């Protein structure tokens, strides 16, 4: 793996100064206020479409739009690579609740505390994401699940789920995060 890291860039980074030229030196283009419709006007084609801890914060309908529109900027054989954090994000700072804690609430109740632009969480389960990708013309070729065993024990011992999540497998509900790779098939 190390052999494939750009040694030149690594050396540049080692002495990196965080000035206004850093992104340019590292060949990074940073765009803000990007709209889904902007894909259609982009000229550059990409090989990898990536996100980290992001898709869980996007409404399901918009995820599908992104997947469909992203095909405009991808080369043939390109991949999608995403890491998704399914856990209750409040559990990151509150040790008294589990990673599956948010699954006890209805959408209405959950929106009272998380229904805003800072804390929105779509609470999709791993199979929901797989379904969205497959229905958007992608095939999942790598899927690495990280199951939270504490959450799994809670679910096995009768943790009360909201009915929205009642039909899911416990292992899926206890999946804390995944990394997956998908390829375009249509």
């Amino acid at each position, binding site marked *: *793996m*190390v052999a494939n890291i750009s040694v030149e860039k690594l050396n540049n980074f080692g002495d990196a100064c965080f000035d206004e030229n850093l*992104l340019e030196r590292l060949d990074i283009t940073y*765009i803000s206020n990007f709209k889904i419709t902007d894909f259609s006007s982009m000229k550059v084609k990409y090989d990898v479409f*990536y996100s*980290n801890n992001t898709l869980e*914060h996007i409404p399901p309908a918009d995820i599908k739009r992104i997947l469909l529109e992203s095909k405009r*900027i991808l080369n043939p054989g390109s991949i999608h690579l995403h890491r998704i954090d399914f856990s209750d994000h409040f559990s990151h700072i509150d040790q008294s609740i589990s990673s599956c804690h948010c699954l006890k609430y209805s959408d209405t109740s959950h929106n009272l505390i998380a229904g805003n632009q800072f804390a929105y969480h779509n609470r999709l389960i791993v199979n929901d994401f797989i379904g969205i990708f497959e229905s958007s013309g992608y095939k999942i070729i790598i899927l*690495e699940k990280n199951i939270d065993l504490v959450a799994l024990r809670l679910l096995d011992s009768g943790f009360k789920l909201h009915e929205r999540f009642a039909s899911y497998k416990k292992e899926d509900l206890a999946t804390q995060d995944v990394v997956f790779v998908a390829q375009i098939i249509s």
Partner: protein
Amino acid sequence: MIISILPFQSKIYSKVHQKFDRYEYGAIETFSQAMINIQNILSINISSQKVFELGSGIGLIHPLYFSIFFDSVTSIDVD
């Protein structure tokens, strides 16, 4: 495999950590492992790939790291 990202720890991590306080080390491990998988399964050299980053839960730091793996990176904010 995690040892393969030692350069991040020794050369970059300290500098980034001085500048930002939201660095998530685990994400880099995950990313590194995912890159290894992609290379092995798809038989591609990721270092020559162009990457479009939809967003990152750890903000602008992540595309900086991507630039070491990839030929070029385009990163956007997701509102």
